[in-house]
């Protein structure tokens, strides 16, 4: 076993750091429905951590717990070595956690560019008056941030639709814009909820490439929920498997793949 406290280096030479976030004994209920039951796992710096499980297992709920939208009835969330107290989601975002959503949550009334710019809101500082007069800091800031955003736009290859209102985009491009918005915040931890749903193989390949590049270039830690086992197994370093709100497996893709519980509950047949 590798040294798990201080991190390790993967086979392809990426550096995985110490634990960034730790979920301890999380339980989340909605009235009578137990969405998550006593789940613990950790996320290491720089790794791609996948969460898989059948529909309704509680994966998205887990992301919502991480991003502060759901408050679990029991359990603790530790981030960067500190216990995270009760926080509103926007405060969590300011810690450097950003995400995409399963049911696309873009701002339909805005252009692609503006949507991505909203990702940088937590980083922009100019005041109301400044903005109103469009002087000095406001204008400078706008230009600076615009440059950064343009880099992301280039990176995700969505230059052509920069000014299109997002409402008109097809599903797959929306997902890409959502990723761009999340990236624009320059997060430490990026949460992706089914980023490849509704894409064909080629588009999935593109998306995989983006995810890997983000992880590589910026060292961003990524939590990924995905139903395409090919993608999960190829991309992730470690996988948590949930079923009916419980954790039924946790480990490297290979370990998970051969876990009989997982095969039984989720995979159906052994995937290669």
């Amino acid at each position, binding site marked *: 076993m590798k040294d798990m406290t201080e991190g390790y280096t993967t086979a392809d030479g990426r550096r995985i750091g110490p634990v960034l976030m730790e979920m301890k004994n999380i339980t989340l209920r909605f009235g009578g429905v137990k969405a998550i039951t006593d789940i613990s796992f950790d996320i290491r710096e720089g790794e791609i951590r996948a969460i898989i499980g059948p529909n309704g297992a509680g994966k998205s709920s887990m992301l919502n717990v991480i991003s502060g*939208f759901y408050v679990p009835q029991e359990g603790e969330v530790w981030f960067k070595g500190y216990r995270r107290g009760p926080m*509103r989601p926007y405060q969590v975002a300011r810690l450097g956690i950003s995400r995409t959503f399963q049911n696309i*949550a873009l701002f339909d*009334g*805005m252009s692609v560019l503006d949507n991505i710019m*909203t990702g940088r809101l937590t980083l922009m500082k*100019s005041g109301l008056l400044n903005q109103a007069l469009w002087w000095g800091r406001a204008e400078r*800031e706008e230009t600076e941030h*615009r440059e950064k955003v343009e880099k992301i736009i280039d990176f995700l290859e969505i230059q052509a639709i920069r000014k299109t209102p997002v409402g008109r985009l097809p599903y797959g491009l929306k997902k890409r814009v959502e990723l761009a918005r*999340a990236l624009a915040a320059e997060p430490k931890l990026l949460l992706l909820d089914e980023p490849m749903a509704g894409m064909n193989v080629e588009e999935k390949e593109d998306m995989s490439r983006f995810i890997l590049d983000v992880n590589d270039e910026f060292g961003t830690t990524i939590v990924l929920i995905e139903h395409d086992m090919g993608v999960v197994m190829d991309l992730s370093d470690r996988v948590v498997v949930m079923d009916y709100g419980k954790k039924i497996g946790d480990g490297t893709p290979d370990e998970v793949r051969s876990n009989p519980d997982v095969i039984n509950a989720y995979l159906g047949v052994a995937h290669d």
Partner: protein
Amino acid sequence: MFYREAGDFKTSYADDSQTFPIRFDRLRYYAVVAVAFGVIPFVINDYWANAVFVPFLIYAIAAIGLNILTGYCGQVSLGTGGFMAVGAYACYKLMTAFPEVSILIHVLLAGGITAMVGVLFGLPSLRIKGFYLAVATLAAQFFLVWLFNKVPWFYNYSASGQISAPERTILGHPVTGAATTASAKYLFCLVILFALAWLARNLTRGTVGRKWMAIRDMDIAAEIIGVNPLTTKLSAFAISSFYIGVAGALFFAVYLGAAEVGEAFGIQKSFLILFMIIIGGLGSIFGSFAGAAFMVLMPVLLKNILVGQFGWATDLAAHVELMIVGALIVIFLIAEPHGMAQLWRLAKEKLRLWPFPH
């Protein structure tokens, strides 16, 4: 083919976030401004000023204000009339208490006071959403009107509760009171509108505007990506109320000259301004102008046509006018739910493609 935007030739991002990125648009804008400042003041008469231009300018301010709240931040408000009343009464109290201070300052202060009141009534928006909020803002509407009607301090204990604007001057020209000339009224309102529209434009194209729009389009997602709903919504309420307060102050002091709160700032006003922004286009400054122009001009026009041209009896004309206004609103909404601003955009899109469709 004069409408050209072949490709994106901007070389800097600052250029790209200009208000009018297309040259032709920019020219047209300069032309409009030139006419508004350089021609109209010299030809305007009492009728045009009082029946058309001054109300249009003032309503445009109010419409921009409401558009910030409703069009940009997504919080539907039916309390506009009440907030205009706050502006009007604040202005009245200031004018009578500090006669030596410039009316311009009074108007702005009145806006400031309205902003504070707006924030107060904006607090419930943190929990209440959609139509529930819209109806809840009626509480502000009715309460404020009642307050100004009931507390004699607000109307300086006058016998009937009416307030009348005393004469005040700017640079020696009266801008309120009976002696005001048409062009003074017009210019005073125009200058304020111009400045406020410019500020609104700046606010809406930058960070603040994006926060508002994010809240409008999907408040939960906005909060998760780091928008603080409290400050964002309240800032929208504050700024919107500021505009509406200024509009209320001008409405009373410059336009009407005397006002009775229930009549001048009743719920009808709230609806009227809401109409303006919806017909004009939610989330568009240009739309606020277009909507205000439409709602001010149309009844005047209809009346002049029906009564003046066709010689109908006034009551018949008034009823037909109501029907036509109602029908036009519906027709407009059916033709283009996103308002005149969108119609304009689509027209431009078509023009740009012209003469090759698609």
